[in-house]
């Protein structure tokens, strides 16, 4: 068994090369996931680059990314596999005239030809090492989570009619969650846990510098500072990293070189999405004493 990554530090450099600025914790956990062959459960506020992490890792490795977007009502048929009923029906109907016995037909219609693979099955039956991303796993119901357990712990899928399909290679699995509900213990136990929070000042500044071309270092620094201050205010929804980037882009487009109060409060609607938040932040930002309520 060869490992994908040399060590955490080199992984971090590789990620930087594909414009994903990780920190020690992120790189360390991904590295461990590879070593221990365990899935990573990535949690954190929206817009902190959880999905992007999986994408970037697959880019670093130069492998395919198979993505399963979770939603309410996701079931086995859409996550694992499904029998192609319609094709099976056609097969049976077209057989009527021939004198095939039932055993022959049933053997025939439950074969690979009539099996529709869905992302999870695809990920483990792929011959090449892939990265599997199970996005927003907190959106499925608790009962549906159980679907994932077999694949996450043993990297295999059991299909009653066909038997157990084992993974040809161990995929690197990422699960992301926005924490809208508590995931089950069983799921958590099988995963390494990574909490991705808002980046600290330096990292956010670097992110802005890499993601927004033409931005001056000075402006990026200011952007990061303002955003940090805004995050300290009690808001309904704190600005995410992607919103920071959008804001920085806007400022560049507007030709702003130094953020003044006026520009800041005029463009706050890019950072914040609730009217009450915008009002509150605008008020707070210009109050120098900085005592947030």
């Amino acid at each position, binding site marked *: 068994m060869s490992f994908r990554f040399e060590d*955490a530090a080199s992984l971090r450099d590789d990620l930087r090369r594909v414009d994903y600025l990780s920190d*020690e*914790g992120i790189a*360390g*956990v991904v*590295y*461990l996931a590879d*070593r*221990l062959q*365990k899935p*990573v*459960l990535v*949690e*954190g506020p929206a817009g902190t680059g959880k999905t992007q992490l999986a994408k970037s890792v697959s880019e670093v490795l130069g492998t395919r990314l198979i993505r399963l977007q979770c939603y*309410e009502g996701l079931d086995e048929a859409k996550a694992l596999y499904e029998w192609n*009923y*319609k094709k099976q*029906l056609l097969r049976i*109907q077209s057989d009527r005239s021939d004198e095939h016995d039932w055993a022959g037909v049933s053997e025939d219609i439950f074969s690979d030809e009539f099996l529709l693979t869905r992302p999870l099955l695809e990920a483990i039956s792929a011959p090449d090492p892939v990265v599997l991303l199970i996005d927003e796993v907190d959106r499925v*119901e608790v009962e549906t989570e159980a679907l994932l357990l077999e694949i996450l712990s043993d990297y295999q899928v059991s299909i009653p009619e066909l038997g157990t399909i084992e993974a040809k290679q161990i995929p690197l699995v990422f699960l992301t969650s926005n*924490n*809208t*509900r*508590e995931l089950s*213990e069983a799921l*958590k*136990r099988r*995963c*390494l*846990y*990574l*909490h991705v929070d808002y980046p600290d*000042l330096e990292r956010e500044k670097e992110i802005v510098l890499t993601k927004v071309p033409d931005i001056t270092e000075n402006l990026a620094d*200011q952007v990061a*500072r*303002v955003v*940090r*201050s805004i995050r*300290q205010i*009690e808001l*309904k929804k704190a600005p995410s990293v992607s919103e920071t980037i959008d804001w920085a882009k806007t400022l560049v487009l507007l030709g702003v070189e130094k*953020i*003044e*109060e006026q520009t*800041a409060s005029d463009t706050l609607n890019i950072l914040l999405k*609730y*009217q*009450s938040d915008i009002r509150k932040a605008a008020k*707070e*930002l*210009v*109050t*120098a*004493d*900085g005592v947030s309520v």
Partner: protein
Amino acid sequence: MTATGTTEGNGRSAKTVPLELGDAVLELLNGFIIELRAAGLPVSLTENLDALEAVKHVPIGDRESFKYALGATLVKHYNHWKAFETVFEVYFSLRGKEYAIGEDGELLDLEDGDLDDAQAGDQQGAGGGGENLSPEELAEMLFQSLMRGDSQMMKGVARQAVRRFAGMEPGRPVGGTYYLYRTLRNLDLDGVLERLLQQAQDTQGEASEMDQRLWRDEYQHRIDQLQKEIEAEIRRRLVADRGVEAMAKTLRKPLPEDVDFMHASREEMTNLRKAIYPLTRKLAARLQRKRRHGRRGPLDFRRTVRASLSCGGVPVEPKFRNPNPHKPEIFVIADISGSVAAFARFTLHLVYAISGQFSKVRSFVFIDGLDEVTSYFEGVEDINEAVHRVNTEADVVWVDGHSDYGHALGVFWQKYGKDIGPRTSVMILGDARNNYHAAESWIVKEMQDKARHVYWLNPEPRSYWDTGDSIVGEYAQHCDGSFEVRNLRQLEAFVENLV
């Protein structure tokens, strides 16, 4: 095992080689995990094994990697991270090279040599000088380190400050907060903050309000860092003095969801307020989902037939109608007198945050008088604000502002009793400490006859019920249930069942 255990040498030498898990490390990790469990983190056996496996893959000399390896395998909930960090600090604080305590365990002699070493070895430049510094010089160093945001220098200052001001004596039975307080009092960080701001203004010239705000945040951030360094330093010394296990025990704090409403410190209160918003969001999502998926509606014949057409008329997939269970109506009657105000606040917050799950929510608050506050919550985006208004504006005092459940319930019954219908659930919040007034418990009985359910939520531990002037038992006999709700976990569980 003692704090200055045998693992120290191990930790140093293993800096580059992958770790061979020695007995000492195993034992240490074992103690660590036991402590995590004692702190309330659910660490299962598999996770324990994973952690042991994981640390084999990281260089143990690298403290941060080691921490993340343990964190990723043992801590599966963000709220628990803080507790994990504390325990980690205690267990592994002495195990880095730069934190080495003298071999002979002589605590008080080490700093000067230590700092000088640091200066020579790790370019901890500004930390040097040690003993010879006058308090003024130290203050100046503190100021400079904060001005420049030089973390190495801050570390040095933190060490010096603790050494000088905390007045730590081995074996003295006081908590870390005492030493922290003593150190901070001497450093006068508020004053330093003002000075920093002044300095920034002087050098950078005229500044807008926003700039000032940003500076303040920046310096505040640095000061917080310094404070963390000081705390860490104190903790390190205490661990060296008292041993790991004893120290971990004194630092054990309840997890946020277990913090008692009635005895929460100010800091815990702020944390609770922060915790309640994501919690309500989570609860609302879960309830909505449950409502939609809890049960299937009747068969939808038309859609089933339509779907069967693509399979040649075979109804492979039956379709069902969406279920549409009715929503309950909620009346919240809350005591907001001093002792239980926090509890009422959280409950109101929670109930309104999920008000979408109810067909109607009405709320009443009382002390000895009673007032309806439903209108405060209508069309308000920020529930916090509404709750604040309830506390300041509602007209709840009748005579003297001491709880009088009997009179308050009487007013309620007279004014609003007729609004209670068979679909109403009534929640009464309070400790039922009635100051020996008349109970008027017949009102609760009447309510129960009319309403669907009447629940009593009491923020006091069950063992205190019916002691002193508490008459909760008298009311509870007419309720469909009375519950002890002392922390967020219990509150959440109750509200979930209610829907």
